[in-house]
Structures are given as structure tokens and as C-alpha cells.
């Protein structure tokens, strides 16, 4: 009885794994075109003089948190990121670049490895300025630039009309893991940003705080 149960489960898992892996990456189905430029620059957090201050809502497994996120470009390619409550109490303060990550302070309630690691990866992608482009695809409205990110890929959706970066999709060969959606009036500053995870129930929205 138990044996057959295990076998049944194994088969189900295998079937499931096959089904999932059979789903192919939709970007790669699109027509491939010549790479326009070997490097793409995301300018949304690139000005070292500017204080990037956003009201944030974090929705995680049905719980909603609200507060303020401050991003500032500091030395080199690093950024300082601070989360505070609406009252101004600092919840989390870290410095991040492509290769380094340092937590300056964190409140006890948030001090969980899984949370820190997730935010680290999200913000590393959000704040990354330079992407090496290996391939390029297109659909009706966008040029889609493919950039390798270790074992995964980043797909940058840049509108043909206006050349605006409006989406970064972080994906394995076959499956979307995370996407960042930008709304921008120009191509140097984003008014609204949504970070949406596909494999965990986590969504972070950022709305620019006009002072």
C-alpha cells in the first residue's frame, strides 16, 4: 500500500516537473533580431545627487505592510537602501552593489534570512545599471533584450516607441521567476515600480513621493 503510494507520488511529481519544464520561455519564441547595442543602461536609479523616495506597499502572503523606501546612489555602483515606517522609524538599512551586500541595521522582527535574501536579489536587479546583451527579440511594441544572469536570464522590455524600459523579467530558461514593472514619464526616472514574484506570494509596489 505504502509502496504504491510512494510510486504514485513519484510519478505525479515527475509528471508535474515535466509539465512545468515543457512550458517554454515565450520570449524565445519571438522573432530574433540583431543586437543593437552590447550594453543596456538602466538609468532609473543612476543619479547620485537625487534622493529616490518612494511610498511602498509590501504584500506578502496576504499581509500588507506600508512604509517608505529611500534609495540613494553612493560610491561607485553601490546604492544605499532604507526602509522606514510611515512614522519614520527605520526598519532596514543596507548597502548593495552587484557583488557586495552589507546590512547596516535591521529590526529584530524582520531579521529573517529568507526575507533579507529575497530583498537583496530584488533590489540588486532593480538597481543594476548595466546589462550585457547577448540576444535581442522583438514583438509588435517592444524590443526585448536578453542578458545572462549566472544560470538565469534577464529580459529587458524596451518600448520601440520612446525607448523606455518598462519591464525586467527575471527568468530561468523556461520559467519566469520575477518581474519588475516600471512606469516612467521619461527614461531616466520611474514614478511607479512593481516588483512581482511568481513563485512566492510577494509583491512590492513603489510610488514616488512628491515632496
Amino acid at each position, binding site marked *: 500500500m505504502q509502496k504504491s503510494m510512494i510510486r504514485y507520488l513519484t510519478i505525479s511529481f515527475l509528471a508535474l516537473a515535466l509539465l512545468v519544464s515543457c512550458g517554454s520561455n515565450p520570449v524565445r519564441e519571438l522573432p530574433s533580431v540583431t543586437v543593437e547595442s552590447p550594453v543596456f543602461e538602466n538609468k532609473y536609479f543612476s543619479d547620485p*545627487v*537625487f*534622493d529616490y*523616495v518612494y*511610498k511602498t*506597499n509590501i504584500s506578502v502572503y496576504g499581509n*500588507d505592510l*506600508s512604509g*517608505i523606501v*529611500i534609495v*540613494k546612489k*553612493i560610491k561607485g555602483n553601490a546604492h*544605499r537602501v*532604507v526602509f*522606514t515606517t*510611515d*512614522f*519614520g*522609524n*527605520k526598519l532596514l538599512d543596507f548597502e548593495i552593489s552587484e557583488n557586495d551586500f552589507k546590512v547596516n541595521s535591521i*529590526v*529584530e522582527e524582520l531579521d529573517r534570512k529568507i526575507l533579507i535574501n529575497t530583498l537583496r536579489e530584488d533590489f540588486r536587479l532593480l538597481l543594476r545599471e548595466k546589462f550585457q546583451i547577448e540576444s535581442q527579440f522583438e514583438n509588435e511594441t517592444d524590443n526585448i533584450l536578453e542578458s545572462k544572469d549566472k544560470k538565469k536570464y534577464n529580459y529587458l522590455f524596451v518600448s520601440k516607441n520612446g525607448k523606455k524600459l518598462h519591464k525586467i523579467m527575471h527568468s530561468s530558461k523556461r520559467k519566469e521567476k520575477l518581474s519588475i514593472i516600471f512606469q516612467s514619464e521619461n527614461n531616466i526616472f520611474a514614478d511607479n515600480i512593481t516588483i512581482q514574484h511568481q513563485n512566492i506570494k510577494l509583491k512590492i509596489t513603489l*510610488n514616488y*513621493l*512628491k*515632496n
Partner: protein
Amino acid sequence: MKIRNIVMFLLLFVGFAAFAQEQKMSDREVAVFKQSVNAVSKKITSLSTDFVQYKHMDFLAKDIETSGKMVFKQPNLLQWQYKKPYNYSIVFKNGKILINDEGKKSAMDVGSSKIFGKLNKLIVGSVSGDMFDDNEFSISYFKTKDNNITRLIPKDAALKKYIKLIELTFDKQDATVTQVRLMESSEDYTKIVFKNKILNAKIDDSVFNN
């Protein structure tokens, strides 16, 4: 020698300037001050005031400014409402915290979080000035021409992690709080300035429905 003289002069001058601005209260002055604040805060049945909040962090080019209205009604109803640059209001009521974030409502128990209970007490205390609890804080007292200033260092280890020092500035005229500064570290603080304060007006409980 000359340079040393200049440095000495500067040190003295700066020291003197600082003293001219702010002086430590004498024991007698402290007693009188505490009595007047307690007398005023005892008479407060309600308080509503506009406020501007400045979040200062050393790495920012300018402070983050938010503003709104605060309403307090005895014994423990408090609404803190941000209107600019976004709508967000938080009500402390019967051991609960009610949040209205641009129309999105949520609630949580203060009881479930000891630190929130302490923060609640601290916020109400900051506004009414009823904060002179020597068991909770190490308190020092100063005066300037127009204001009395108290600096409170939390004794509670949990609270101390969030707030290193609370500075309350009182108007000498009416002995109510005009400014609160919550220092998280030497570089970071939140400053809240109260304006257009109205004492003891009739306030309906429905204000705190959020």
C-alpha cells in the same frame, strides 16, 4: 602659538554660543516645570493639531517631509493622519491599531506586540507632555529663551533599540509640546513640529473609526 589662540578662542566662543542658546535647568526649575506640565496635561481632555514631520538621514540631500493632522482624546484615543504627500491614517484605540492606507484598511492588536504598546504610550505622552516617568527614562532638563527642553533616554532595552533619545520641546507660555525629535542614532532622527494646536475642543468618537 597664534593658531592655538585662534583655536582656543573659537572653542570658547562656540562653547559660549552653545551655552547662550541652551542651559541646564536647576533642580528648582525642573520641579516648577514638571508641575506646570503635569497641571496642563491633567486639564487636557482633547487636543488636535497640525503637524509637519521631517525625516532626517545623513546621506540624504534633504529631509523627507510629510504632514497632516493629529487628534487626541482622553483617555487613550489617538489618530495620526498624514495628508501630504499621501493619505495614511493610523488610530490607536482600545488596545488596537487601525490603519487606513489610501482607503485600504487593516487592524492589529497592540497587545500582541509589547513594543507597539510602548510606542503608543510614547506617542500619547509626547503630545500631552506626560512623559516624566523616571522608571522608563533617564531624563535631563534644559531651557532656552522661549522653550523648555527635555531629553529622555529609554531604559527599556527593546525600546532603546528603536529610539536612542526623545527630545521634547515645550512652549514656555502654555507648557505644551511644540516639537518632538526621535533620535535613532546620531545621524538619523524624525522631527515632528506641531502647529495650530487646539485644546479641549469637543471631538466626536467617530473621528477614531478610521
